[in-house]
């Protein structure tokens, strides 16, 4: 039984059909890459899974539960986490507070008002920051980080709630080669406790990190399989050549 199973997802924006029966299945602790040409519906599919958009048709199942109608908050509480394509760290807050904000999301209201979880979460905040190599910037405002570091902070925040599934929309967008390499390293350890769906243009990056790939084209699944299968696929090569 897969951890996440999206089936028959259709999303229509006015006259534009962004998704036309797309599907995606992700197993426990699997890193799954979502690729395809521009406008193939990758981001829209991510949003439908995370609840940022409601699909016009189709269903999303997560941990054996139909979550199609749940709000983003409810999905987050069920163990799903999304990192947005555009970085949305909170720029005026310190790095420390950005992580704390993510970590304390499931504390009760009274715990928040009386700051009861501040002490117990401190070590977790510091270990998240250390894991993402940001610990010595802890007291700086997030706005002062480089673009790549903001992406890492964002990934750290997305992982803070110990999700079972992390959705990453273009994590390496705008990063240097070195930063991409580090991002790959940073993501590897989470495989022990978390599945990953990743949308990415950098095919080398995807190939290095993912177990399976799904290729979207014009809102439909063109091909889905292991990295080796996809690399050997004629039809996938065709769509990439067609655009190139």
């Amino acid at each position, binding site marked *: 039984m897969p951890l996440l199973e999206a089936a028959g997802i259709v999303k229509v924006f006015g006259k534009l059909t962004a998704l036309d029966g797309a599907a995606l299945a992700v197993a426990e602790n699997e890193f799954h890459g979502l690729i395809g040409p521009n406008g193939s519906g990758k981001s829209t599919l991510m949003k439908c899974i995370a609840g940022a958009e409601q699909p016009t048709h189709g269903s999303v199942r997560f941990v054996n539960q139909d979550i199609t109608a749940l709000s983003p908050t409810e999905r987050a509480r069920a163990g799903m986490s999304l990192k947005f394509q555009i970085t949305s760290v909170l720029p005026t807050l310190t790095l420390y507070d950005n992580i704390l*904000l993510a970590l304390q999301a499931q504390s009760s209201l009274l715990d928040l008002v009386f700051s009861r979880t501040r002490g117990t979460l401190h070590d977790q905040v510091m270990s998240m920051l250390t894991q993402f190599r940001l610990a010595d910037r802890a007291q700086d405002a997030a706005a002062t980080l480089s673009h790549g570091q903001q992406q890492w902070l964002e990934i750290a*925040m997305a992982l803070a709630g110990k999700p079972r599934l992390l959705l990453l929309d273009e994590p390496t967008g705008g990063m240097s080669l070195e930063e991409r390499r580090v991002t790959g390293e940073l993501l590897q350890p989470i495989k022990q406790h978390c599945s990953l769906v990743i949308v990415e243009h950098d095919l080398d990056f995807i190939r290095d990190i993912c177990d399976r790939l799904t290729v979207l084209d014009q809102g439909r699944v063109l091909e889905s399989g292991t990295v080796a299968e996809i690399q050997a696929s004629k039809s996938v090569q065709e769509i990439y050549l067609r655009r190139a």
Partner: protein
Amino acid sequence: MGVAKEAVRATASGGPDIAMPECEAAGTLPVRQTRRKVLPIVEGLTLAVAILLPLVLQDYLTVFATRVIILSLFALSFDLVWGYAGIMSFGQALFFGSAGYGVALLARDLEITAIFLVLPAAALIGLIFSLLLGGFLLLGRYPSSVIFVALGTLTGSYAADRLARGWYYLGGQNGIPSISPMTLGSAEITEGPVYYYLALGILVVVYLLCRFLVRSQFGLALAGLRENEQRIAFFGYKAQHLKAIVFAVGGAIAGLAGGLYAFHEGFVWPNMLGVVISTQVVLYVLFGGSGTLIGAVIGAIIIEGVSFYLSDNYRDVWPIILGVLLLLVILFRPLGLISFVLGERERVGSFGRKPKGRRHAAP
């Protein structure tokens, strides 16, 4: 701060090393240590001035100053709601006025004037009205827009004003005159230094409660909320509930201020519910600086003080002078007067565990 920084470094050195040239530049400690101090100084000075004021003022000015203190309390409620939760309540006077009317009716019809009954009643009335309106405006299926909330609250305030004008039981246009004074045991609390210090004491207590709230982890959630509501929903926060809670707390504070105001003035009238006072409180906060608490108090004091002075000395043109002054500040200092002394970093603050001189164990 130094200790925390050291702790942070200790932890950091345990992690894998990667060259990050920005780190050294950001590690400059002295800047960080000096910039944490402004807010308590401003708060202390304001409090000192407020405590000493009645000693130097003539009696009729103390009465005026009491009114300003009560309006500051009212301004505090709006700052909490707008400055911290990002809810543009353009009808905050609805809670101020309805609590004023409520205690006026208690005094007139039930002869209840005991301070320990009427002031909690005032806060309760504000709380109930804001829960009702907030539930309606903020707890929809989707997050409500700032414009929707602004228009919704504005309409509520306007409607209440019209309702009070037309309702005979509430005294119509004239409101409820000559409310009997608030009492403590057999003593009457009338305008003057006693009322002034009562209002100031309440302001200080409420201020400290608000300060506690906005600096708690709840305050951190609010900081996230006003910067990016959608983002924090994806963390699993019930963002709309947080907003409704703050709106209700703001309503209770506005109600408390309304109760104090009604007994201080000795009468209530429909304007107290209406759009003019609602707008006035928005101006106090924007002028002083929203999202700082003390900015609301300073804004109320300065605007009321300047109006008082101008209306005395420039009888014909003072509203124009005041209007231009407000425009200038809001155009050129969008973060309010307080931003002359208060930096962005301190205004936002930090919410992590406060250093207690204990070194964090390095892994």
